[in-house]
């Protein structure tokens, strides 16, 4: 396994997509800080440092989908996965070494974004105002969701032997999760009460009524569960500091990591390779 990791990281060092994504993480973080600072000056609003600290998490799914599909997909398109199998490396070791690489890349990009945001944001907006323990919990949840993404995209890449198909499927999954998250989030964000205009005696009057789109009971719980479970849902909650179940989110990520790796290893073991 150490030999496989060594060769993977040697390849990573010269892989342009990885460096582009690192620059993207830095550039995006600086852009967000500068934009909010300009708004702060223009509109005389205050910006809390913690509200932008995990901003990049919203994009991490797409970033990792691109990286994992192209990096691992190259092993199939160039046929180099055969070199590893021919000389006797086990399929499980090959699978796990690729997962570890994707995991470390995801964490590196995440960490780079957070550090850049801190480096640029703290001088502009001041220190984090929330408790350090809460901040650390959110940071760990963010790291775990990156690892969960790594597990998902590693499985897709290892079981799809065509690089182009891998890229398409991974991108569709990334955007699919994002759209589902947006839909769930908007549904859960509906207010319980709303203002409704009614005509009374020829005059328009505003009335406070129950919002029919407000989710209640089991439906609300299911929506919240899915939002807590899927990595994109976790990313949205963390970046907007609206986390409802921070401890459960970490556990869900661990479950995703374990289940996807297990299923992936079993399927890859049986796969006929050309």
């Amino acid at each position: 396994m150490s030999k496989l990791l060594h060769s993977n990281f040697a390849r990573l060092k010269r892989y342009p997509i990885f460096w582009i994504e690192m620059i993207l993480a830095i550039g995006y973080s600086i852009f967000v800080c500068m934009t909010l600072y300009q708004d702060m000056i223009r509109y005389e609003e205050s910006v809390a440092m913690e509200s932008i600290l995990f901003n990049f998490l919203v994009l991490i799914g797409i970033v990792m989908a691109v990286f994992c599909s192209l990096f691992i997909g190259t092993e199939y398109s160039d046929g180099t996965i055969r070199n590893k199998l021919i000389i006797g490396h086990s399929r499980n070791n090959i699978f796990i070494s690729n997962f570890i690489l994707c995991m470390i890349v995801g964490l590196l990009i995440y960490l780079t974004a957070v550090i850049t945001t801190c480096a640029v944001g703290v001088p502009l907006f001041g220190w984090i105002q929330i408790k350090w323990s809460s901040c650390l919990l959110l940071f760990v949840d963010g790291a775990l969701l990156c690892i969960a993404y790594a597990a998902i995209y590693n499985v897709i890449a290892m079981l799809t032997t065509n690089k182009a198909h891998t890229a398409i499927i991974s991108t569709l999954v990334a955007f699919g999760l994002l759209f589902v998250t947006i839909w769930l989030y908007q549904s859960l964000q509906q207010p319980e009460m709303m203002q409704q205009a009614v005509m009374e005696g020829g005059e328009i009057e505003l009335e406070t009524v129950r919002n029919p789109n407000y989710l209640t009971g089991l439906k609300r719980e299911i929506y919240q569960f899915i939002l807590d479970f899927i990595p994109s849902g976790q990313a949205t909650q963390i970046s907007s500091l609206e986390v409802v179940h921070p401890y459960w989110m970490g556990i869900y990520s661990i479950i995703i990591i374990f289940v996807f790796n297990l299923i992936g290893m079993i399927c890859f073991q049986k796969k006929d390779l050309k």
Partner: protein
Amino acid sequence: MEYVLKTNALSKQYGHFKALNGLSMNVPKGAIYGFVGKNGAGKTTLIRLICGLQAPTEGEYFLYGKRHTQKNIVKSRRRMGAVVETPSVYMDMTARENLKQQCMILGCPSFDGIDELLELVGLSHTGKKKAKHFSLGMRQRLGIAIALVGNPDFLVLDEPVNGLDPQGIIEIRELILKLNREYQITVLVSSHILDELSKLATHYGFIDQGHIVREISAKELEQACRKCVQIEVSSTKILAYVLDEWGMEYTILSDTKAELFGKINVTELTIRLAKEHCEVKSMQEKEESLESYYIRLIGGRKDE
């Protein structure tokens, strides 16, 4: 005799299609084993199985005496290198970088030997040129170089001269011969270019419809293919008596047919046999090439 590879009733099924059907073969140590068969016969499927890319449906194979299901077959796999179908090279890396990658995958303690390998395959001049800019011949040679990292003593080459120009074919052939003669590497090379194999192989395995039709050494093949006169007589017993008198080499095929080797005076033979009341029914010269031997063996059916 020591065998590097032995397969025993190896079968591989994809759905309803049986690509390998009870294939049994033996690759002797130190041989250049030419694996001959038409398109779709099962050559590449067998190579995929022995390289560990796919698992057999039935049967077994042994690499250096280790069964394919044994955990310690890893040690046997370390002794082998292969180029399966197309060369496995990172297109965005140079030749040197590709070999370094393979060194890391193998866990080689250093990158010593890379220069010699590049020299051996004729790629020492490629410098910073990436593999995606290589010609097909150069990629084939790089694939062989990658397979040679770690000093294997068993090399598996799947149609290594496919798509190469005549110069490229000669270079690959000479490389294989050099590896076998100077480095004692056992080579299993699959091909359907018979002429090319006839210049290389020390042993042949003819495959058709997923099983081995015949295994034969180059010496035995030479014997089988050499120029002779095929004669049909009324009694090969009498023929044998006459030929023994003359000290001529021959092979009895049946009660009425035989093959005669060497220079024959047809008139004298016919007169001599007539004296012994043996009729000569027909005589024809025969010389078999590897191609005609193969066609006769396989049947010359169209590719399915």
